[in-house]
């Protein structure tokens, strides 16, 4: 077996009081391709950032060539020959391809830049990844897949001993993926240690030597790729008990009114031809990978971004919602996944944030401050918002209290249909439970709820029905007993909902042709 180059031993990571990685062991060997797989939020990205020196570990050791190291900065990692390619690219958009590839270590002739040599070498690196872009082209003018190739060329130019790639194939076509894997194999042959993540399990099986599976911040499986097939990868990634965190699901009666019927909803660039229905008293979960177009589809439905639909029927009435104001007036409200950048003005207090969406209720021209205060008192009580003082800056509230305030803000507009996007992201378990209970009560009172979430247990524990999206389309809808982690993962990965028919006739095979 070849030599270990870079390894983690008993590495844990805490953000504040929350531990997100629990004693991780991981070893990268030279001349080996290592795949790291797991659900969203399993801790893959954090693990990779610690390996590359972007983030310090809270506990445990990083071994480089069997010696303990502590990377003081990103530069140390690069000095040691460790290169990481991020999921969201790390390129200067306004510089050319050549300038990016040599950024920070430009070649010089005397004290002037040696442009012709840098251009020549850039061409050579690009040729190795069969990328035809002009070295002088601005990065901002490139497609995502070309940017990915430029990142890879940049990594090649640094003679990396360890190459770490976070979902490198997410933006690539099949042909480009093939080119990338050829390069990966060439690098492996020359002794580079490679770690990559992917949600495409067939790729993992195709190119990797070792597979490590993470779940909830811990390694749950690690071993040679030959000993694990795609089905077992999926079941290993999953497999977790759903505790009694969730309120009981009352069955939605068959004669419940259909409150929302959407046909052919398309959000250009994100979602194509979605059709679905929502019934009164129902919680419809939308699952799928990050980037599957879930958020964009719902934002399009609510008039928050450009969208078209063959037909949208709201409470039996044919409607068109061009602005979020239209949607709000008709009783449809969207609660954003990004409470810090889209949900709340962090510099403001709770009162101004609470009433921003429904200011028209607090006066047609002048604002009735007393009514606002009363609404805040009510919201603090109803949603159990725990703030030191009423005047606290919202940015200083905990994530859970921010989320409750955001929920209170949206509920002030009295929506009959509420769309919540990642309603429990980054908040503690106690608050999560409160939000689950609240959503279930809301449904029981005759509202209808759509819940986008990347947390599997949430879909299973709370949703009455689950619609799984993949690549901007509905991959399948699951009812009652059919809602299992296994089937959701399979649908979001492009496999059939039920296990064990493979290769040729699976939807994955068709995807590969796209």
């Amino acid at each position, binding site marked *: 077996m070849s030599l270990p180059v870079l390894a983690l031993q008993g590495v844990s990571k805490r953000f504040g009081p929350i531990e997100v990685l629990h004693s991780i062991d991981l070893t990268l060997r030279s001349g080996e391709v290592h795949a790291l797989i797991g659900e969203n939020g399993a801790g893959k990205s954090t693990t990779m950032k610690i390996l590359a020196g972007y983030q310090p570990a809270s506990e445990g050791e990083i071994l480089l060539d069997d010696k303990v190291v502590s990377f003081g900065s990103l530069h140390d990692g690069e000095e040691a020959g460790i290169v990481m390619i991020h999921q969201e690219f790390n390129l200067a958009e306004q510089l050319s391809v050549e300038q990016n590839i040599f950024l920070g270590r430009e070649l010089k002739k005397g004290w002037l830049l040696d442009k012709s040599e840098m251009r020549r070498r850039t061409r050579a690196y690009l040729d190795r990844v069969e990328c035809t872009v002009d070295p002088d082209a601005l990065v901002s003018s490139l497609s995502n897949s070309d940017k990915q190739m430029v990142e890879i060329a940049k990594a090649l130019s640094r003679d990396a001993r360890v190459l770490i790639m976070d979902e490198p194939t997410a933006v690539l076509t099949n042909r480009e993926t093939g080119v990338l894997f050829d390069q990966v194999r060439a690098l492996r042959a020359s002794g580079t240690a490679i770690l990559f993540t992917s949600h495409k399990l067939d790729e993992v099986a195709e190119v990797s030597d070792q597979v490590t599976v993470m779940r909830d911040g811990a390694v749950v499986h690690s071993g040679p790729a030959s000993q694990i097939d795609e089905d077992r990868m999926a079941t290993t990634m999953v497999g977790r008990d759903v505790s009694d965190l969730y309120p009981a699901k009352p069955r939605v009666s068959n004669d419940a009114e259909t409150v929302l019927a959407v046909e052919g909803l398309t959000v250009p660039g994100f979602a194509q031809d979605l059709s679905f229905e929502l019934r009164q008293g129902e919680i419809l979960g939308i699952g799928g990978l990050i980037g599957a177009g879930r958020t964009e589809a719902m934002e399009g439905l609510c008039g928050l971004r450009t969208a078209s639909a063959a037909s949208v029927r709201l409470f039996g009435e044919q409607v068109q919602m061009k602005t979020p104001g239209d949607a709000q007036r008709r009783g449809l409200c969207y609660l954003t996944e990004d409470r810090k950048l889209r949900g709340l*003005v962090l*510099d403001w207090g709770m009162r101004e944030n609470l009433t921003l969406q429904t200011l028209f209720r607090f006066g047609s021209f002048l604002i009735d401050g007393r009514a606002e205060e009363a609404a805040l008192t009510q919201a603090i009580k109803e949603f159990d918002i725990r703030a030191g003082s009423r005047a606290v800056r919202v940015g200083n509230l905990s994530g859970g209290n921010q989320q409750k305030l955001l929920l209170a803000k949206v509920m002030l507009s009295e929506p009959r249909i509420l769309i919540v996007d990642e309603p429990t992201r980054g908040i503690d378990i106690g608050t999560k439970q409160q939000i689950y209970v609240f959503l279930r009560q809301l449904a029981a009172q005759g509202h209808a709820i759509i819940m986008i979430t990347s947390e599997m247990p949430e879909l299973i524990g709370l949703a009455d029905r689950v619609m799984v999206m993949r690549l901007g389309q509905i991959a399948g809808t699951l009812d009652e007993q059919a809602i299992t982690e296994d089937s959701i993962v399979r649908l979001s990965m492009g496999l059939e909902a039920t296990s064990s028919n493979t290769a040729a006739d699976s939807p994955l095979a068709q995807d590969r042709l796209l």
Partner: protein
Amino acid sequence: MAVIGPVLALIVLVVIGAMMNSNFLSAANITNVLARSAFIGIIAVGMTFVITSGGLDLSVGSMAAFIAGLMILVMNAALPSMGVGVPIILLGMAVALIAGLAAGMLNGFLITVLGIEAFIVTLGSMGIYRSLVTWLADGGTLSLDFSLRTFYRPVYFDGILGISWPIIVFALVVIIGQIVMSRSVFGRHCAATGSNEHVAHYSNVNVNRTRLITYAALGVLVGIATIMYVPRLGSASSSTGVLWELEAIAAVIIGGTVLKGGFGRVWGTVIGVLILSLIDNILNLTDFVSPYLNGAIQGIIIILAVILQRESKAVNQ
């Protein structure tokens, strides 16, 4: 400090002025300072809204010159048919208000609907209006007909109870502006838009409309300021209103409104305008420092104001 800083600076200036020249606190001088402040002040109140909602308008000085030129041309042209009287003055005022509204709407349209940077749009329109007024005046000066000038003069020089009209109008604009900014739905929407456009959008605030209204309102206020300004000199030329935009922006910033947007206060802007006018006035009344250094001192005050803003922000976080 961010709250009382500008007030303290104003008090210090008044004390210095009073010590240096006994005429400083005379009714005549105070009226003079306030009346001269009124033009910039009225415009600066509008600028406070534009900046609070995350915008900027560099065109207001040129716009004022252009509107003044247009007003004079229209009134002179109407003189033979309408004669000297209240109707022709009302016509001139209507022209100023409509031209201001149109110019502000145009800026706002280009910025919000077409999504071009406010800096670029208003830099462009600044050049356009400045050039138009020079062209209208054929490189020289446009003068209001003498008979009209005599009739119109009281709008600048007269008033009620010894308070001249520009001061009265300025006070009204400030009171209304302060109420709208701090108590109205629109003011809250401006602050939300400037604070975080995305949060505003996701909170169903019509971001584009809010911004458009701020530019349109600023245009109208430029029109009002011009209505007060024309009777003072009775003329307009390519040098009318030069650097008004920077004085207005400076006044807004000195008053504690955040240049990046998200927070604005109209009363602060008034303090800012008064500080700038007083520096000018004190330098003219005393021979301690050359009046030619007026710009330098104003510049220092502006930079100091921003440093104070930043430090108080750092303390908050």
